[in-house]
């Protein structure tokens, strides 16, 4: 028994000596390249932390400056005139909701139908490729140009700024988001499910309405929620389509207030009251946007 042990020990000894002769595999932390790596790692951490600062600073300011002013009065009252105290932005909340609602009503059916064409009916046709490309280009489309376009098409012909025009401008911006999200959600529906439905003798419409849309619903809804969140916070296209109004809206064809435009108008005013209201309106706007964002995340998480 002792002989093999001995040989093993001597073998180990030889191995150790051989290892000693080779350069160490352990990297010294003081070596130049290790140091460089460490420094860069540190810088990346710093950069990541710095990048998170603005978000927290914005949220802090919203709650401190806006939260203190938030009350039932600010949520329901009409905007104050220059030297008035008090007041609120109830009409702007209503206006924002109405215009985002109009935009959703327009962009949702159109976007989903277009996505059906892209994802199910003719995914490889030339029209589908063009539309897909254009939808992607439109997601980077400056929102103010949607306003310019709708101004030229609707405001000039109707001769008035209106909630309708604002809604259409927002719809132009929501459309590509809805299309791309819905297409992706529908493309993820397993082919087996569609084949099974076809095998039962379903027409394509039946397959789409009864299998693809219900299965892809959560993905589509996620996209819709994100589109709504984006539209609610968007103000540039409303500047000269909906304009602003100091009163609650009574018809869809008159100038309409919105939270974003109220913030824009009040931010430049030299009165403390208006500036406080701008912060409070920002808080409300951010909360609305965040609610839809969180909804999107929750719906999206459920299935996948």
């Amino acid at each position: 028994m002792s002989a093999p042990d001995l040989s093993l020990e001597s073998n180990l000894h030889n191995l150790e000596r051989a290892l000693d002769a080779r350069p160490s595999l352990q990297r010294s932390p003081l070596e130049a390249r290790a140091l460089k790596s460490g420094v860069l790692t540190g810088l990346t951490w710093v950069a990541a932390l710095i990048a998170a600062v603005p978000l927290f600073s914005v949220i802090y300011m919203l709650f401190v400056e806006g939260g203190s002013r938030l009350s039932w009065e600010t949520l329901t009252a009409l905007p104050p005139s220059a030297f008035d105290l008090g007041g609120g932005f109830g009409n702007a909340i209503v206006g924002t909701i109405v215009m985002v609602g109009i935009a959703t009503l327009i962009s949702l059916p159109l976007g989903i139908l277009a996505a059906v064409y892209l994802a199910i009916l003719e995914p490889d046709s030339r029209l589908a490729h063009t539309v897909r490309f254009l939808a992607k280009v439109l997601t980077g489309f400056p929102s103010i140009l949607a306003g310019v376009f709708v101004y030229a098409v609707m405001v000039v012909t109707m001769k008035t700024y209106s909630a309708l025009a604002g809604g259409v401008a927002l719809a132009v911006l929501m459309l590509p988001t809805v299309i791309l999200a819905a297409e992706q959600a529908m493309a993820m529906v397993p082919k087996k499910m569609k084949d099974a439905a076809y095998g039962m003798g379903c027409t394509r419409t039946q397959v789409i309405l009864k299998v693809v849309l219900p299965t892809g619903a959560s993905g589509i809804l996620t996209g819709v929620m994100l589109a709504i969140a984006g539209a609610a916070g968007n103000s540039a296209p409303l500047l000269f389509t909906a304009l602003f109004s100091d009163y609650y809206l009574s018809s869809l064809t008159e100038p309409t207030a919105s939270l974003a435009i109220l913030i824009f108008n009040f931010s430049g005013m030299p009165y403390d009251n208006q500036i406080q209201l701008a912060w409070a309106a920002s808080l409300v706007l951010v909360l609305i946007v965040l609610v839809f964002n969180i909804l999107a995340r929750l719906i999206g998480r459920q299935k996948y």
Partner: protein
Amino acid sequence: MVSRPFENLVQSGSVSGPPSGGDYALDRGFRYLAWASAALILALVAYIVIEIGSKALPAIAQYGLGFLTSSEWNVQTGQFGILPQIWGTLYSSLLALLLGGLFGIGIGIFLTQDFLPPRLAATFRTIIELLAAIPSVVFGLWGIYVLIPLLRPVANWLHEVAGGIPFFSTSLSGPGLAPAALVLAIMILPTVASISVDALRQIPYKVKEAAYGMGTTRWEAILKVMLPTASSGILAALVLGFGRALGETMALAMLIGNSNQISLSLFAPANTLAALLASSFPEAGPVEIQALMYAALALLTITLIVNAVGLAVMKLATRKFEVER
């Protein structure tokens, strides 16, 4: 096509039936509707370009290309030119890209190269995505009441110490290029970060393992293997971020100062195409509207080109990996 392929089935008395004539009609109708909706997008984009183009036509005829190189914007004399706005748009967007791009790619690396445990990385990604959810006007408000007061002493100190350098040749009195570009950088950071994260994630894990196996440090692997491999995706991230910066409106209209001058100074007020549209459009008369339409057309052209280039680069990047796999 056979007109009634399921006739036998109908006569067999089975519970299940073939699609009825109504089903066929519905099917055809629905498909046409879907086709029409898709075609509508095409029509919409064409309509946007044609509408803005045709409204700009009188101004194009009147001012010609001199519009792009003149720096006068005077409603009284009817002289219009957008050189300062083009300069301001490009300058502010480039500054934002420099900063937002650097941080955005840094965060892309931070989130994909095992700096954080997966769950923390997901949380951090959410934080960055929430940054994208903050509306532009809110950033504008924050810029006016937080960023500018914070920046002013630093800017004025830089102006006193290093006023000889053209970048610091003026002092910051309020709105100006620096706060505008900073906010712009914050706003494009999520775009750049999320596209670079996607690009870096596309790299097969074995590529990284191979680099580590060769004995590289983490950063040698990142700088010499990961970033070059993901380079086209990251380029796409930068181009699309740039496109976003070019068209950003409200925060800039609130922060840049709306002054039609061309200056290298970071602290001087400036103007951008989008901010010009936002501030002048609501009160413009018919002649100025034509000029503004021309400016809108210029902005449309610039952003469409930048975005199309970005998407083409991104497509190239994705295709590269499809071939390699």
